[in-house]
């Protein structure tokens, strides 16, 4: 169990330092290293606070370190430079080749040029979808800015979204091969719904709010506001969309997705149940859009969200 003291000691040491990415990186690095040392000292029998104090004292001249990081002898462009990963280059080359080969053989099988039939074509289209998904997730997972790569789960989510969408395209392509038409349309429709829904959800929640330096900057800004104004900062009241253009943009994207999905659902219902019932999909889309509007425009944002 790590003492909270190291966080307080670090905050004291870094008080007044500009919250630049370099300073923030240094603070985070010191934090985890101090935590490791505190664990070691606590294991040897020292109390939590004493361990934190001793670990901090052992660091040496932290002020000089902060001043050094603040000067940052390394130019910003060099710090942010993306280092080439040879393993990624090899994967990014081989995966598309494999996907293209699988797609070509899959098309030949679907057209009956080679044996294997629709079963082989479906299998190979699934392989293509998975390979493209892997490529997307792998690319997004690469460290592309300030040493904070996209979290693995989110990158994988994008990969799965891409794979589902590609698989849906394969499903629609199979409509021209004969066989049960309704099966291809329903399967492709479900894959497309899932893929687009997942990608839209990931896209709409893509922010840097959780990055350490953003949190730190936000906390410092709030503290500074309270110090200079003598009162706690409160989010200004009023129309959320005019206050937060990002929320308005998100609403626009959600609306577009709702109508695309409603249209697809309408076509599927039209083909399978009857065109008189297809209108229900659009009614559902309208209801979903109004609920979304109510939720996004009037519900107050969560604490800590800016």
């Amino acid at each position: 169990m790590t003492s909270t003291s190291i966080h307080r000691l670090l905050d004291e040491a870094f008080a007044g330092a500009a919250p630049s990415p370099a300073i923030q990186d240094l603070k985070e690095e010191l934090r985890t290293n101090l935590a490791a040392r505190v664990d070691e000292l606590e294991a040897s029998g020292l109390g939590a606070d004493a361990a934190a104090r001793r670990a901090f004292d052992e660091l040496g001249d932290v002020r000089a370190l902060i001043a050094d990081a603040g000067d940052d002898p390394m130019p910003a462009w060099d710090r942010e430079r993306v280092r080439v990963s040879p393993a990624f280059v090899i994967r990014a080359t081989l995966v598309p080749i494999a996907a293209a080969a699988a797609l070509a053989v899959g098309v030949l099988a679907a057209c009956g040029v080679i044996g294997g039939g629709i079963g082989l074509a479906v299998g190979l289209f699934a392989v293509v979808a998975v390979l493209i998904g892997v490529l997307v997730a792998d690319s997004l997972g690469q460290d592309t800015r300030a040493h904070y790569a996209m979290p693995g789960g989110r990158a994988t989510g994008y990969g799965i979204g891409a794979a589902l969408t590609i698989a849906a395209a394969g499903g629609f392509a199979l409509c021209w091969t004969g066989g049960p038409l309704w099966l291809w349309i329903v399967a492709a429709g479900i894959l497309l719904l899932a893929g687009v829904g997942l990608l839209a959800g990931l896209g709409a929640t893509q922010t840097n709010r959780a990055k350490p330096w953003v949190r730190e900057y936000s906390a410092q800004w709030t503290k500074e506001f309270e110090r200079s104004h003598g009162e706690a900062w409160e989010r200004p009241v009023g129309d959320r969309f005019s206050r937060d253009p990002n929320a308005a943009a998100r609403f626009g994207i959600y609306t577009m997705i709702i109508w695309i999905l409603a249209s697809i659902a309408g076509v599927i219902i039209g083909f399978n149940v009857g065109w008189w019932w297809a209108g229900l999909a659009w009614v559902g889309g309208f209801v979903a859009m109004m609920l979304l509007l109510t939720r996004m425009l009037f519900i107050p944002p969560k604490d800590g969200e800016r």
Partner: protein
Amino acid sequence: MTETIGDPLAADLLRGHTDTIVLSVLRDGDRYGFEIFKTIRDATGGAHEIKEATLYATYRRLEKDGLVESYWGDETQGGRRKYYRITDAGRAVYRRNVAAWHATRDIIDSLLQTGK
């Protein structure tokens, strides 16, 4: 003269080779700051240690010179760890510095007549 690792002379000598020592530690694999510190401390039997603040300055210098590169590891209980990895340039500089140290050690040994 009896040498103990705690001598100011020995401490100065060690400090002068901090860059090479850190490169040497990283040759065995990627490490985060406290691991590097601990490896050095344990290698000297705990009798001597290079201050952590000195090591941080060293990491920054080595990174600036392209001899090591850093990346953030997975989340732990205390936050994310910053790992360091030696580059090919770092390995070359390490080999050159070790060769230079051996040559210097031989010269000093023969000058002080302790070598034979």
